[in-house]
């Protein structure tokens, strides 16, 4: 019995990590694509269909680059920092639930690695440790640009962690649990038979504060001062190259996915479908089949225009997406995968929002950053807690 649980846990960890790394790779791809479109250019489009093999090429490039260690670095800590950043980023995914539990052949399958009853606290603990990767990298590099990046990062993380923590207290008051699965289950149902009972409605202010603080916690523009390339070369990762740089990069995108998952779980009902009607269960199949149809159209047009006979990658991709869409028509598969589809869609919306903001909003100045964190977000979040507490108590 113990052994089966161990094997299932290990298998789940392997699956989750594989999916996570794939997601990270394709969020990078998405970032470059969206950035391209926003700047009126194509983004990656040479490697594979739609440039989809670009992440693999990028990884190989990072792998084969020279791993240069500058002479002035503080040895053990300089090597420790990227590992710290990446490990801590990966650890927080362990308590994120992706879908409803299902029972197959008498065994309940939990759609997360583990469900802690302090799940949210665990995530905050792990993300609060994440700053060490950056701060220590900045200090140990022995360069003034890196040090400035590390200093900014530690000040910024402390300031916005408070806002982040305060922002979710309203959700905790409403749901009465720290378990992420419990919080999602508390959001089931609909008001007036149509508006989903997600915490975004009663906690809209909390959500805004969370969103802003989450941008700062993940060092994303407009709060990417630790690596502001215009003033600090590369900030905390100036002296890192090759795979060590790739690790910081992975950590940043993993953190992005984590905060997007958390926003979905806390404020948008996790894997709950957004509408109460029965036909909503066919939406995943429709969306995927529509995507397959669009890809087929692109492939046909490319073939007509360019007469490239060996062009089979896009139709192949369309076939895979279409097959998954067809699988959703089967009721058993739909029951298992539909919650995951909704969860993934909501997370995707948040990731897109992150990218969108990054390429639209310029960077804050350091004093503006501190002003926003301490004098705006924190009081607003505190007032939100007070009002939520009053309303719940009355």
């Amino acid at each position, binding site marked *: 019995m113990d052994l089966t649980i161990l094997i299932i846990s290990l298998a789940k960890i392997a699956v989750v990590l594989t999916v996570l790394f794939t997601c990270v790779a394709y969020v990078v791809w998405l970032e470059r694509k969206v950035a391209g479109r926003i700047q009126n250019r194509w983004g990656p489009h040479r490697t594979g269909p739609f440039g989809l093999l670009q992440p693999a090429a990028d990884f190989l490039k990072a792998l084969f680059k020279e791993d240069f260690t500058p002479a002035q670095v*503080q040895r053990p*800590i300089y090597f420790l920092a990227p590992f710290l950043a990446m490990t801590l980023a990966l650890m927080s995914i362990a308590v994120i639930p992706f879908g409803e539990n299902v029972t197959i052949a008498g065994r309940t399958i939990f759609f997360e690695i583990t469900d*802690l*009853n*302090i799940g949210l*606290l*665990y995530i*905050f*603990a792990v993300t*609060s*440790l994440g*700053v*060490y990767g950056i*701060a*220590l990298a*900045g*200090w140990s590099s022995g360069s003034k640009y890196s*040090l400035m990046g*590390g*200093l900014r990062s*530690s*000040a910024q*993380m*402390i300031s916005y*962690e408070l806002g982040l*923590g305060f922002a979710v207290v309203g959700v905790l008051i409403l749901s009465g649990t*720290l378990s992420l699965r419990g919080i999602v289950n508390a959001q089931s149902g609909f008001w007036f038979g149509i508006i989903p009972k997600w915490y975004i409605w009663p906690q809209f202010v909390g959500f805004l504060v969370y969103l802003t603080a989450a941008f700062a916690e993940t060092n994303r523009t407009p709060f990417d001062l630790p690596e502001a390339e215009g003033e600090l070369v590369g900030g905390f990762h100036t002296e890192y190259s090759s795979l060590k740089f790739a690790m910081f990069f992975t950590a940043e995108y993993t953190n992005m996915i984590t905060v997007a998952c958390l926003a979905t779980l806390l404020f948008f009902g996790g894997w709950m479908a957004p509408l109460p009607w029965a036909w909503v269960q066919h939406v995943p199949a429709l969306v995927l089949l529509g995507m397959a149809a669009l890809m087929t159209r692109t492939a046909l047009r490319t073939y007509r225009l360019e007469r490239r006979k060996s062009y089979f990658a896009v139709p192949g991709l369309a076939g895979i997406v279409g097959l998954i869409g067809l699988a959703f028509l089967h009721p058993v598969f739909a029951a298992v995968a539909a919650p995951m589809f909704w969860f993934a869609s909501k997370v995707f919306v948040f990731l897109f929002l992150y990218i969108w903001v990054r390429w639209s909003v310029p960077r804050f100045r350091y004093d503006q950053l501190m002003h926003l964190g301490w004098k705006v977000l924190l009081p607003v979040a505190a007032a939100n807690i007070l009002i939520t507490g009053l309303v719940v108590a009355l």
Partner: protein
Amino acid sequence: MLDQFFFYIFASVILLGGLLTITRRSAVHSAIFLIATLLGIAGLFLHLQAEFLAGVQVILYVGGIMVLFLFVIMLVNLDQAARQRQFNRQWWLALLAAAAVCGEALYGLYRGRGAFTFPGAVPGNMPPNTQAVGNALYQNYMLPFEVASIMLLVAMVGAVVMAKKRL
């Protein structure tokens, strides 16, 4: 068996971390080993099934206070401090005083050894204790809790007043 194994691991992390914290020359290295010690203490809390305390320990001490420490250490130029003598030349006096305190503690432990009985292990998992902590703090010990928070506030305001020359 497994319990004891984890206890000894956490205990040795705490002791080793504490020892290295006071003996390292570089202040940043000291801070890193202090972080290891605090994480070890969080592990002990977890081992005692006090998961809320463990989480708060990591968030507050490791993720908050120690980051501030590190921030200050990075700001201050420590080259001078690193070149200074780290220990006083009062070995014999220090050793005597330490031995006296140690002997006193050991004697006290020896006298009261009958009182050390381990409570029977709780079968299975304990109920989640976040709620229990909340009830204790906000209902049973409301007044002391609030008094402590006001004291902290006063200390904070005092520090700001003293540090700022012009308000």
